[in-house]
């Protein structure tokens, strides 16, 4: 539940950093720090986007009442 906020939070943070930089009222040191942080955030976001593995599974009840995950194939 917490994890799904990561991307959203990162993008929001990124937006804030970019705005601050664009406004140009940071000191040189601050803007370098913001830039560095911003770049590492874009990397993190891209990584999150690559993470999904594209599995479609289904949870079905097996004999004995146990639930089992199996790959879901669509019926044509």
């Amino acid at each position: 539940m917490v994890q799904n906020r990561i991307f959203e939070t990162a993008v929001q943070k990124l937006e804030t950093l970019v705005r601050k930089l664009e406004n140009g009222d940071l000191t040189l040191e601050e803007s370098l720090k913001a830039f560095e942080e911003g770049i590492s955030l874009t990397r993190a976001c891209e990584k999150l986007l690559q993470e999904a593995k594209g599995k479609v599974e289904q949870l079905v009840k097996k004999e004995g009442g146990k639930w089992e995950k199996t790959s879901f194939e669509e019926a044509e």
Partner: protein
Amino acid sequence: MARKRKEAAAEQCGFDFNKTEDRVQKTEDLSVAARGEPSTPARGEPSTPARGEPSTPARGEPVEPPKIFSVAELTKNIRSLLEGNFGEVWVCGEISNFKAHTNGHFYFSLKDEKAQLSAVMFRGANAKLAFRLQDGIEVICHGRISVYEARGQYQIILDYLEPKGIGALQLAFEQLKKKLGAEGLFDVARKRALPFLPKKIGVVTSPTGAAIRDILNILRRRYPDIEVLLIPVKVQGDGAAIEIAAALELMNEQTDVDVIIVGRGGGSIEDLWAFNEEVVARAIFKSQIPVVSAVGHEVDFTIADFVADVRAPTPSAAAELVVPRKQDLEMTIQTMRTRLIQAVSKDFPQRMMRLDTLRERLSYGWQVGFEKRDDYLKRLMSNLHHLSPLNILAKGYSVVQKVGSTKPIKKASVLKEGDSLQITFAEGLCRAKVQ
């Protein structure tokens, strides 16, 4: 279907009524004609003895004592008379004094302006009711008249009941909507936002329906690698609602599902009915994971839609709601990166230029300052030179001091005879005595 049944039943009722006389005639042998009873039923031949009854009095013959029934016998006779005549009836009226007994049976009265009728609907029959019975509802019902012998009470035993002027399902829908609404299940304040980018999407629907196909299609188009967990369920027919509710609960036990789509494709109100059942509404309400309802078409509104955090008009729309387009996200990140770099590099030349300017100003400033100071120093030194006592001495002046004092003597009057003096010349010094 109910209508057909009713017509059929009505015909049957008519038929029964036509047969009434025959029946009464038959039962007469058993009991009906208590002799001498002025209101002997239905016959119109009050004094005619029932045929073949051995105790029938004949005119002029000695009068036998009237038959005396036990209460049980009489009641039993009344019962069989009533049951024989009203084996199947339709009746309409308003429900009052409704009581659902703990044993599951329903007891109430059917009434209109002039009369009332005790009614009972046993557990087996009332379990099939889609809506809740309550006082004041006008109903049309079907059943048979019987006598509860222990109380000497006649009543109608109902096997079917429908609301008057409104469909049973429609009434059930309105009732449940009102009830759950009052309990706060539809409160806007409790509706949760959907995750921006879910890690895994839970889907509760039929594995073979159109809904799952549509959902997967859209999901794959928007976010090709998105993870999906399907819990296959029946979405219509007996037990569908319970399966759906159980699946929602099971979905909540998964650790990585962060949004749930529950729904099915279009159908009749009966087909969609599971999504109007209380057990499904409660399961959606209980879910810790945000739920998107996606039942039928745009125009279909179900109770599930009211409880869900978000109502999607169709299963396809649900898929669009739960996942952003991956392309858009990649674009967003790319744009951010560009802006980031631009923002920083836009500042750099400016900063460098400023630095250069400063450096120039610094060195210029230094140079100018130096020259100024140099001049000043030279002037100062020349002044110093002019003012130097040495310069004066060189012109032939000398300085007189008392020996042991550093102050030069400016007046002769401070001197006494015999004072020792020191005289300083431009070059060298000497001692002298005042005379």
